[in-house]
């Protein structure tokens, strides 16, 4: 089987999310990559260096700079004559584009796969991860999004892919990029961090969220996350949200502070290797999944912990 992997990048650097998808694709067959963007020579070179990749298709066009699904999907469809499967990371970019490709190919997409069980069979979470379904497709072509935490990352170096320019129809004239507010942070990215410190509604305010969570995260070299309740209340920005509808994370250590442990939050973090919970309610559901729990007032515990580390 020939697979095509969507390379996640920001026109300058290849993002780690790509590497887990390469691992998933390699279980199906030969791995080709697609780098679509503007001024992406550097990204194409990084892509070609990923271990085990074959061809790297590069579509360099202003119409692809912001990965608008209306423009990018037809490009991918045009490459599917010579590929049997296309795989995307289950990021907001991947989730935006993949179904548009699937419908154009008359294929039922398989979302957020956790494992490859065979050439046509995959597992995927349903009901916020409260159940795992094994599904078998009858479609001739495969369109798949991949949960990054479920696959090991392919090595970013050691490969010798061949770069090949491709072109598509460019701008379809349906949509234009108007701007972005992308958070800049010195901290590691949530989805690839080894340690995450997450805050919940118990923090009570945006000021307290940052006053309590940020120093501890800095001490641990951790990324900062938040529960949906904390984001909805405005204590933390949306890109911090961990959960069913936010980001799915699986760090080595996840520290949940003032988070009760709603089903939809657990769905986003319960594959973390070690979960540590700090909560004043000893019956909070978070303690049912936590490896290490400490019951008490976070406003006393967190400063003391930060101090002692």
């Amino acid at each position, binding site marked *: 089987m020939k697979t095509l992997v969507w390379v996640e990048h920001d026109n300058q650097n290849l993002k780690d999310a790509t590497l887990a998808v390469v691992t998933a694709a390699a279980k199906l067959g030969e791995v080709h990559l697609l780098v679509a963007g503007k001024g992406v020579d550097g990204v194409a070179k990084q892509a070609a260096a990923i271990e085990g990749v074959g061809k790297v298709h590069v579509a360099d066009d202003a119409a692809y700079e912001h990965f608008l699904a209306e423009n990018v999907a037809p490009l991918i469809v045009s490459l599917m004559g010579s590929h049997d499967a296309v795989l995307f990371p289950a990021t907001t970019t991947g989730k935006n584009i993949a179904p548009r490709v699937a*419908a154009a190919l008359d294929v039922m997409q398989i979302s957020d796969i956790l494992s490859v069980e065979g050439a046509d069979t995959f597992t995927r979470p349903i009901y916020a991860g409260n159940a795992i379904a094994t599904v078998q497709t009858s479609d001739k072509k495969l369109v798949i999004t991949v949960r990054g935490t479920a696959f090991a990352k392919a090595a970013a170096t050691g490969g010798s892919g061949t770069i090949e320019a491709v072109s598509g129809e460019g701008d379809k004239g349906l949509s234009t990029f108007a701007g972005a507010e992308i958070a800049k942070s010195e901290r590691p990215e949530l989805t690839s961090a080894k340690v995450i410190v997450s805050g919940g509604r118990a923090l009570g305010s945006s000021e307290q969220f940052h006053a309590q969570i940020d120093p501890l995260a800095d001490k641990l070299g951790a990324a900062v996350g938040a529960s949906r309740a904390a984001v909805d209340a405005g204590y933390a920005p949306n890109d911090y949200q961990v959960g069913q509808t936010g980001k799915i994370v699986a760090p080595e250590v996840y520290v949940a502070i003032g988070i009760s442990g709603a089903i939809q939050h657990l769905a986003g973090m319960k594959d973390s290797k070690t979960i540590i919970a700090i909560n004043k309610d000893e019956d909070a559901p978070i303690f049912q999944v936590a490896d*290490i729990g400490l019951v008490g007032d976070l406003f006393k515990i967190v400063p003391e912990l930060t101090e002692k580390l």
Partner: protein
Amino acid sequence: MKVLVPVKRVLDYNVKPRVKADGTGVDLANVKMSMNPFDEIAIEEAVRLKEKGAATEVVVVTIGVAKAESDVLLTARAMGADRAILIQTDDEVEPLAVAKLLAKVAEEEQPGLIILGKQAIDDDSNQTGQMLGALLGWPQGTFASKVELGGQGVQVTREVDGGLETVDLKLPAIVTTDLRLNEPRYATLPNIMKAKSKPVAKKTVADYGVDVAPRLKTLKVVEPAKRSAGVKVGSVDELVEKLKALGVAK
């Protein structure tokens, strides 16, 4: 401008899903079913557009069991949808087939905007809106946290992994809702009573001539590996020791 809002009837948000012992799926017998929460946000957004004078009519459509008429479609009308379409089927319909049916409805209804939930909380597919965009050849603003209608287009602010992104779309367009787009109103009892007189057109899948045969076969459904509760420590000092043992603290 007409706004079309497709909704899905799903296991209620507050009910913990239970996997059936025979591994064929999640038990939906005798449990509370409700409108998918993201779809409530879609209805709310459409009704607000009408209240602002930007939309003239809000039409809600669902594909599912007959009972939807008296629960989710009633809720939608009580929230402010003007009329409803029920495409009745007892079978599970996959996102691709749903999108094909909705494309047919869109051809008939000619809406200027279709607002959908970004994903249903049962199958968590996150596909239908984007697929509908492809089938109709319309632009899409997915995971919306803000929707602003202008003269010939709509500006959508999207929740993306790194923060927020804004796109300008030509009309007609597709919008899929994220959590923070709005806070849906409650369907009050008086509005529920009044909603009963708002029309519901009853259709069947066959009326649209769409092949809805599933492409995916579910071989089994199992519970995820369970985590067991660990230990509780009694003090911050003990927690520091544990963190040191894990190698994340010096």
